[in-house]
């Protein structure tokens, strides 16, 4: 038996894997045959309905063209026909793993146009939920990416913790996904009693879980072989291609809007920006895992320093009056009626509001013409822009590495197609 194993080892080691880094120029002239392969749109490894047109030479990818639009639902157009506070609902559904971020970018842009000040407590509540959402998004990514490179169990562990976060979302907003928690001027409601304790329990438990994920993956030979030195791309090239977020940080550029241009009180919190060195799949993978830990730190600090005060602005022209005022105050009733029927009017102007989403710079461009409906909403979705880097990443790599790289790219087709 032992002879068989060592024999296997010997054969395995005799395989020349330097071809991985070679450009395979030895195939010349007539021997060179290209095969065009269509992957997707319905393919479990394409994370949604993404179609890839791959040109192969043997097993090596020579060129790749993403074809998108299968999930296009015209949300930007739909938003133009809805009043500002109703548009939040549809815009949230773009990138379906980053709904708090979509709502935050849109509400931030509208607040800038309105010049509404968001109370400090609301900013902290937003940060707590944004970071919970970031962890949730990274957990879904971690589970599915590990599944794509063959690690089945990670998927169950990742989704177990994600479930806890979704329970917290349900507890604070009533919905598990697409919560519409963030509103123009603040958030939908204050935290229900017992929420903080539940959230703290999650934050206390999670670092151990992340350590378990690391134990499971970081020293696994298969994972390391599938990730290390696979499909790297330099930071300069990524910047040319407009890539931001964990992908850029994995290449060693510590660009993070939460630190560089803080919004919603991020300057109050002490956290680090995990970065990689090579920009290969290994760095992309473990930068995200480290980001989960940093997000936990932010949540704990925000819970510790949660200021007293209102959870939404007192500006009755923008935010609904509290329920108890409706029975006693005439003005409250009028404001309520105006807001629910027409919505609020926004001064004319154009605003571009960027935030750091789980996948990079998520920005919302809103143009107002002075009416109660936006004249143009555009979401700069990081998945859409980052997808352009996929071709350069997998050029001259094996098709098996294409799947691993796509997993590490973390594209969300709902965000790409909008």
């Amino acid at each position, binding site marked *: 038996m032992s002879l068989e194993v060592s024999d296997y080892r010997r054969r395995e080691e005799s395989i020349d894997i330097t071809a991985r880094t070679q450009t395979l120029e030895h195939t010349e002239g007539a021997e060179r045959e290209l095969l065009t392969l269509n992957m997707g749109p319905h393919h479990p490894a394409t994370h949604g309905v993404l179609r890839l047109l791959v040109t192969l030479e043997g097993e090596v990818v020579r060129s790749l063209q993403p074809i*998108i639009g299968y999930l296009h639902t015209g949300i930007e*157009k*739909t938003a*133009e026909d809805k009043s500002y506070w109703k548009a939040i609902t549809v815009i949230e559904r773009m990138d379906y793993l980053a709904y708090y971020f979509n709502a935050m970018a849109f509400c931030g842009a509208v607040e800038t146009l309105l010049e509404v000040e968001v109370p400090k407590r609301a900013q902290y509540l937003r940060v707590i939920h944004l970071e919970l959402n970031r962890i949730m998004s990274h957990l879904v990514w971690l589970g599915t990416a590990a599944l794509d490179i063959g690690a089945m169990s990670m998927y169950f562990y990742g989704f177990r913790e994600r479930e806890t976060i979704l329970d917290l979302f349900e507890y604070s907003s009533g919905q598990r996904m697409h919560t519409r928690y963030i509103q123009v001027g603040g958030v939908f409601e204050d935290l229900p009693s017992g929420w903080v304790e539940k959230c703290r329990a999650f934050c206390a438990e999670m670092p151990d879980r992340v350590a378990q994920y690391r134990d499971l993956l970081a020293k696994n030979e298969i994972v390391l072989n599938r990730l290390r030195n696979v499909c790297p791309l330099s930071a300069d090239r990524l910047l040319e291609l*407009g890539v931001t977020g964990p992908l850029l940080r994995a290449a060693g550029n510590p660009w993070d809007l939460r630190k560089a241009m803080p919004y919603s009180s991020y300057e109050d919190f002490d956290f680090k920006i995990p970065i990689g060195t090579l920009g290969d799949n290994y760095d992309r993978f473990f930068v995200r895992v480290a980001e989960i830990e940093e997000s936990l730190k932010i949540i704990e600090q925000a819970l510790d320093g949660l200021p007293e005060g209102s959870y939404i602005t007192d500006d009755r022209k923008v935010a609904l009056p509290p329920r108890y005022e409706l029975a006693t105050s005439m003005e409250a009733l009028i404001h309520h009626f105006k807001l629910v029927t027409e919505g609020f009017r926004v001064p004319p102007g154009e605003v*571009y509001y960027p935030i750091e989403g789980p996948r990079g710079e998520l920005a919302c461009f809103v143009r107002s013409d002075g009416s109660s409906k936006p004249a*143009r909403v*555009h979401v*700069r979705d990081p998945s*859409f822009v980052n997808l352009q880097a996929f071709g350069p990443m997998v050029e001259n790599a094996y098709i098996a590495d294409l799947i691993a790289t796509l997993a590490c790219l973390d594209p969300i087709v709902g965000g790409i197609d909008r």
Partner: protein
Amino acid sequence: MPDATGLELLAQELRELHPDGVLDTTFFRGKAALSVDPTVIRPALGFLRGKGFGFLASVHGVDYYPDEPRLGVQYELLSMEQLDRITVKLRVSIDDPQVASVTPDWPTADHQEREVYDMFGVVFDGHPDLRRILMPEDYEGHPQRRDFPIGGEPVLFTKDGAQGKDYTA
């Protein structure tokens, strides 16, 4: 952000290079924006790159219906060193929506210019592969234009096709 003065200085410097290039400067909600003539978009972005704005964050289209010229394209530039943003705006008429593509200088504009072409019908000269990106290739019209109706899309349901009915209006 370049403050209002900084924006004027930038605009003045650009005017010296391209006398008719800068049409307007706006400083709105703490954010600088430069309106330029469509013909100078590539040199204008190149000039701003020289000023440190080395990252093109976003390219998006706007329809200013009923104002003329109707279509707008906006370029969001970011300087990671100065922690600064600036918007470059241009306007083209709907009859002749021609803009030089910035893809040769900024590869990230590839997909985004295709989206603006798809949704607004702005033609980017010199784009390597200007096709529709989100809508089907045989689609007619540019759906993000303000005069394109919501619900204007004919839908064929399977049950209607079986009954010999045509597209629903």
